[in-house]
């Protein structure tokens, strides 16, 4: 790794100025999360005080008008949608990047990359609209009602694919040429090189891509709102409609007052907790290696 990283002592005054400027920038960047969590906690406090945390997981249902605040079915909805989409998008995305670098002729690789870059910027509304008008009736024809966990997984996959594909593409690009030449010299065929040499070398970038795409999958609101059906229930099959925590906040925030509003902020906190848990798990599994 970088051998100069531990040497922050330097003779040059510009270096010291630079260092403090950079530290300032990083402090601001790092502080944003703290601010957001503080904001969520402040808004959620009223309901946490009178209702208590346990009821958010043990009440009979989610009906704030009647005073019921069970978040569990929506939590399952979020988890299933996220897991499903990440499981499908990750191989597709990584294979897309592999395709761009190792299998496609250059005339095909460039437009393909442009296509994926384009798709990173299409609004979630457009994906949701397309899902509602094209995908949902298609799924409905196979198994009513149509808006379902499956529709959510498909749309989410399409949305997070560019993230993992582009990150994977960038990480594959920086694999040192010597590795590839060495593998060729050893007589390794293409797939064996990719699997045995390229993937381990590009590991850190690939893992960053997976984390970023998972974050996107958890945080997606608009498109999920339009294609998942928004029924508060724990899904038992791919064709059951679900409501995710984010869709819940979007649907009800506009009309919620008092305890109901605070309860929505609690669900926001639950989401942040989930992400923090995932990041911690990723860190622990890799023993910090993905960050090195």
């Amino acid at each position, binding site marked *: *790794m*970088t051998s*100069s*990283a531990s040497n922050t002592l330097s*003779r040059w005054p*510009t*270096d010291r100025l*630079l260092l403090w400027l*950079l530290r300032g*920038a990083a402090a601001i960047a*790092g502080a*944003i*999360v*703290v601010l957001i969590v503080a*904001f969520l906690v402040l808004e959620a406090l009223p309901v946490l005080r009178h209702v208590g945390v346990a009821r958010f997981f043990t009440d009979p249902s989610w009906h704030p008008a009647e005073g019921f605040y069970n978040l569990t079915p929506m939590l399952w909805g979020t988890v299933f949608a996220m897991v499903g989409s990440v499981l499908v998008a990750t191989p*597709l995305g990584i*294979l*897309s990047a592999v*395709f761009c670098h190792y*299998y496609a002729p250059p005339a095909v690789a460039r437009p393909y990359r*442009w296509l994926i870059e*384009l*798709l990173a*910027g*299409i*609004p*979630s*509304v*457009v994906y949701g*609209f*397309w899902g509602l008008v*094209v995908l949902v009736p298609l799924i409905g024809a196979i198994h009513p009602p149509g808006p379902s966990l499956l529709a959510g997984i498909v749309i989410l996959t399409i949305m997070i*694919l560019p993230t993992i*594909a*582009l*990150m994977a593409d*960038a*990480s594959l690009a*920086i694999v*040192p040429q010597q590795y590839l030449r060495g593998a060729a010299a050893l007589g390794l065929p*293409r797939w*064996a090189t990719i699997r045995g040499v390229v993937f381990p070398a590009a590991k*850190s970038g690939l893992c960053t891509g997976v*984390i*970023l795409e998972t*974050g*996107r999958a*958890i*945080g*997606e*609101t*608009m498109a999920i709102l339009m294609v998942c059906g928004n029924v508060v229930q724990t899904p038992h099959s791919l064709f059951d409609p679900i409501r995710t*925590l984010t869709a819940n*906040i*979007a649907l009800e925030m506009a009309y919620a007052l008092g305890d109901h509003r605070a309860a929505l902020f609690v669900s*926001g906190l639950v989401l*942040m907790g989930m*992400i*923090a848990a995932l*990041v911690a798990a990723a860190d622990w599994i890799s023993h910090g290696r993905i960050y090195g």
Partner: protein
Amino acid sequence: MVKALERHRDGREWLASIVVWSAAALVTATFCWLLGDILWHGLSHLSWTFLTAPPRNAGREGGIGPILVSTALILGVCLGVSVPLGVGTAVLLAEFTTDASLFGRLTRRSLDVLSGVPSIVFGLFGNVFFCKTLGLGFSILSGGLTLACMVLPILIRSTEEGFRAVPAGYRLSAAALGLSRTTTLFHLLLPAAVPGLLVGLVLGVGRAMAETAALIFTSGYVDRMPESLLDSGRALSIHIFDLSMNVSGGDANAYASALVLVVLLLAINRTASWLAEHWLHRRIITI
């Protein structure tokens, strides 16, 4: 025995080829379906007047002129704030902190958590922090700053990856030559790390243009031509949302607006790519 192993290996190679090409074909087909749909429905409503006239009749008629201006301003504010902050943080994390440092670990973790915050939470946070606490009200500035918060983790993480990819040899040679860290950074490392920065930029711009929920509560809904950064301005994604979900009969213009957005994105991505290649990366001559 060797022949059998060879055949097995060839079979695996052949299978891998099929899988990779099918994956690419599947991805291309799905995206072409989507883009084709937008093109098909939106092309007929596109015209020069559409791009410059203000919206009329709640957006069903008229054009998207002021909305394009608002979007450009919001994007400008977002990138203007997030690129310096983001590149600075990435440089710090990659060059000036060891892997074991607590500051580095905490910052990276908090950025990963930030990347997963739902867009609606950003919208609500932006509304309370930028619009109310900092007193900016519904404005392009609030919208741009909120988007900058959303885009930061993506930008930082990919730029950091870009820096990690630069061979240690560069830094060692620079140190051997007695160059200051600042000079090494600006003249050697930044140009070499441009691919990572570019990916971060493309993903970040994409995320910023795609955002709806965060902007409804911060930069607002007003579709008038903005006169200053403190004016409320409607972004293109919100316009598309309003036309397709709130205004009956707005579908036609929603498709046309989506098409304009896609073309705009293409232009931005290509320009950023070209700039990065010709302006920064070319400084490095690799052996």
